């Protein structure tokens, strides 16, 4: 109650302030700073409320961002979200470093075959399943309001590809909140990393195919696309490994200022990836993995990541929430719901099937799929590319995808949290979470 009153007071202050004579208007970039402060407080309090009712804290952060964002209270605009993108990059690096630091080589080694099998099964079944359903629907013009049937096949291809993606950042956030350690957490993390590469490769191939088909000219060959992605993946992993080795050297001499070091490392990784067009997520995961598995300072490194990174996480997920177009959801909720259900069925079937084939325990078989339900960064990024590269029908498809992502991102983290708890992988309260 006290938290609610506090937020109401601050909200009223924000409404009144731009009207103060001699001050700046709400269009000033300084208003963004005020709003950012408000969002942090609102998201944190919602995150705590969310945890109180058994949901993960990130659901609260996402809802906080949605409420304050351009489709809620309109406290800030889409431009403001873009202006704060550097926080997203920093957060993504921190999350990926943290994710890599959670991967234990000893456990991963034992589960490598399972991880690869589950990744391939998910990619194949979800792509084929979602593509087939939506191709049929678009083709027989059952969804004319959603998609022109001339572009149905292309739209279905893209829907299939994007449905295969999941959100590694949400996975890491939930694992961190519960301080989860165990086969379920490790497998979900491992598959998320492998799929991150596969999804980008598949999307590039799909985009090349659609471009070629629409333009009627020869596009870039599949081999070239595949080669370029393999090259990026290889160099990202290599750079991550080298950075990890460097961090190990640093940790041997650095006995304090872990927080400062970690923040510096996250900025460095993010800028390095941007500079050399590498995959920041893979690079950071590899660096975190190297440090945690090949140095005695891994514990201190994880501690540095946990300490002080929470404000960045809260802003990141609040901004993600703000990027989820609520208007898109209201416009296309029936089609979006169908996409979510279709994806969930394929996800469940492929994951449970592959897990059974690989001899996973029954409880893992039952719960594993929930770790891949959430969708955010990668899927949003790919949707934006579709919108900009294919004007017209790409815009419609973008709206549908965003609406589905909004649903998946809201239901995914609670499902995964429930599964981790059901499998008994919670190892005590995390430092990021509540005491």
């Amino acid at each position: 109650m006290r938290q609610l009153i506090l937020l109401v007071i601050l909200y009223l202050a924000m409404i009144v302030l731009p009207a103060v004579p001699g001050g700046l208007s709400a269009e000033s970039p300084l208003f963004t700073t005020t709003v950012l402060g408000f969002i942090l407080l609102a998201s944190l309090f919602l995150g705590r409320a969310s945890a109180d009712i058994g949901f993960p804290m990130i659901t609260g952060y996402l809802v906080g961002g949605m409420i304050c964002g351009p489709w809620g209270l309109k406290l800030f605009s889409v431009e403001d979200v873009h202006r704060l993108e550097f926080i997203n990059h920093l957060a993504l690096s921190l999350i990926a470093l943290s994710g890599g630091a959670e991967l234990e080589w000893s456990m991963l080694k034992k589960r490598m075959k399972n991880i690869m099998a589950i990744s391939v099964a998910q990619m194949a079944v979800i792509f084929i399943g979602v593509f087939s359903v939506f191709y049929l629907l678009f083709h027989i013009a059952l969804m004319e309001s959603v998609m022109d049937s001339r572009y149905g096949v292309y739209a279905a291809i893209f829907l299939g590809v994007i449905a295969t993606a999941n959100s590694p950042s949400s996975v890491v956030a939930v694992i961190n909140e519960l301080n989860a350690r165990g086969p379920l957490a490790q497998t979900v993390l491992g598959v998320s990393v492998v799929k991150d590469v596969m999804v980008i490769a598949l999307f590039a191939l799909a985009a090349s195919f659609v471009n070629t088909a629409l333009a009627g000219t020869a596009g870039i060959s599949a081999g070239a696309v595949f080669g370029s992605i393999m090259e990026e993946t290889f160099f990202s992993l290599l750079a991550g490994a080298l950075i990890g080795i460097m961090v190990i050297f640093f940790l041997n001499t650095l006995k304090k200022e872990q927080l400062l070091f970690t923040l510096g490392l996250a900025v460095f990784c993010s800028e390095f990836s941007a500079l050399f067009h590498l995959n920041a997520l893979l690079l950071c995961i590899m660096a975190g993995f190297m440090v945690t598995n090949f140095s005695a300072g891994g514990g201190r490194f994880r501690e540095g990541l946990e300490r002080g990174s929470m404000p960045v996480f809260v802003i990141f997920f609040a901004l993600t929430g703000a990027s989820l177009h609520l208007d898109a959801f209201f416009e296309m909720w029936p089609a979006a719901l169908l996409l979510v259900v279709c994806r969930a069925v394929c996800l469940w079937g492929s994951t449970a099937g592959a897990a059974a084939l690989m001899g996973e325990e029954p409880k893992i078989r039952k719960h594993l799929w929930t770790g891949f339900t959430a969708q955010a960064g990668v899927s949003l990024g790919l949707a934006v590319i579709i919108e900009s590269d294919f004007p017209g029908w790409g815009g419609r498809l973008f709206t549908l995808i965003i609406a589905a992502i909004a649903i998946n991102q809201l239901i995914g983290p609670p499902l995964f949290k429930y599964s981790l708890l059901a499998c008994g992988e919670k190892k005590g309260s995390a430092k990021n979470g509540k005491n």
Partner: protein
Amino acid sequence: MVALLGLIIILALAYLGSIYVFAKEKLPTPIRYLFYSGWEFILLGIALGPFALQLFPPAILSNLDPVIHLGLGWVGLLIGLQLKAGDIAKLNRRYLLATCLQSIFTGLAVAIVSMPFIYWFQSMGASHLPIGITVLAAASAISAPTILFLLGREKGFRKEIMTFLKIITNLDAVFAIFAVGLAFCFLRPGAGFQDGVKFLLQSFAAGGMLAFIFHFAPRKELSENETLVVLFGFVLFSSGVGGLLQVSPLFLNMICGIFLANLLPRNDPFYGAIINIEKPLYVVLLIISGLMFNIPGGLTLILASLVIVARLASKYYFISVPAPRLAPYLEFPPRTGFALTSQGAMALVIGLTFLSAYPGNDSRALFSVIVLSVMVNEIIAPYLISHFMRKAAE
């Protein structure tokens, strides 16, 4: 490729630096003390910025405003939280008066030598120059305590004069921030005296209200990380409010901090969180200062040289002549004024307040003068302070 090479060089230097910093006894004293001042982070900022590796082009720098505001607000709050009425009342009033007069004296000296440059800056179309000159003066009035006390501890220097110097170096920043706060209210372009009074009252009212709201925030049940989020959120909010009201976020948060210092109990969890994050935030502000640094032209260099000399001379003179009259029972060893040479990161924070409120080439030139002044003063401070201590011991 140049950027890659630059990054590799920076990493190699950072690694070597980390080895040496954690084995400080191997380093000569002046270089060791440069690390305490955070000099290397300013250099890092310059190296990463638009004039060297260009990893942070101007477009990205303009998006760093929330980070700068967070840092400014945090520092303001931290300074304000140290001003508990009960603690201040216990201090020697004559020492407090000396601190205030020393700040004014140094500030005036620097403002006077900077005045002729007003025409040069005006040619760049600056209507906010009076605020700029006040900021330059206020930044110069500050003395940092770190090097003085580390050297004092290392050399076993325990004379009574250290108490006096401790008060000056710890509290002159308060007077400097206050001067900047007043300048933002009264010297704002187009504002008359009445407007100034109105803006000042607004600052106090906003600071006080924010303190009461903050005091109302739930604290006890929060984890360490959640406390940090609340603090970040609150400081961002109050700094944004300062920016919107066009008053200095540093000043507004200091006011808020003063109210809070007298509202919160001493064992409040917020104190720990504020202090824990202090160093990382200072480092971020130092790096940003380096990023915002402009390669100085001839006139900037001349102004910076004049400011450095005027600052040092006025501090030296004040401690030699008026100070012994204000504290006649204290023994002032020769060259005590040198003890106040170190300027510290606080001066940069004051410069950043101005730069974020009044961005532009003229502001960056003035800010670069402050950066140069800080860098030079941090180089000479260990020598001059050691010299003062050696003379005092004779």
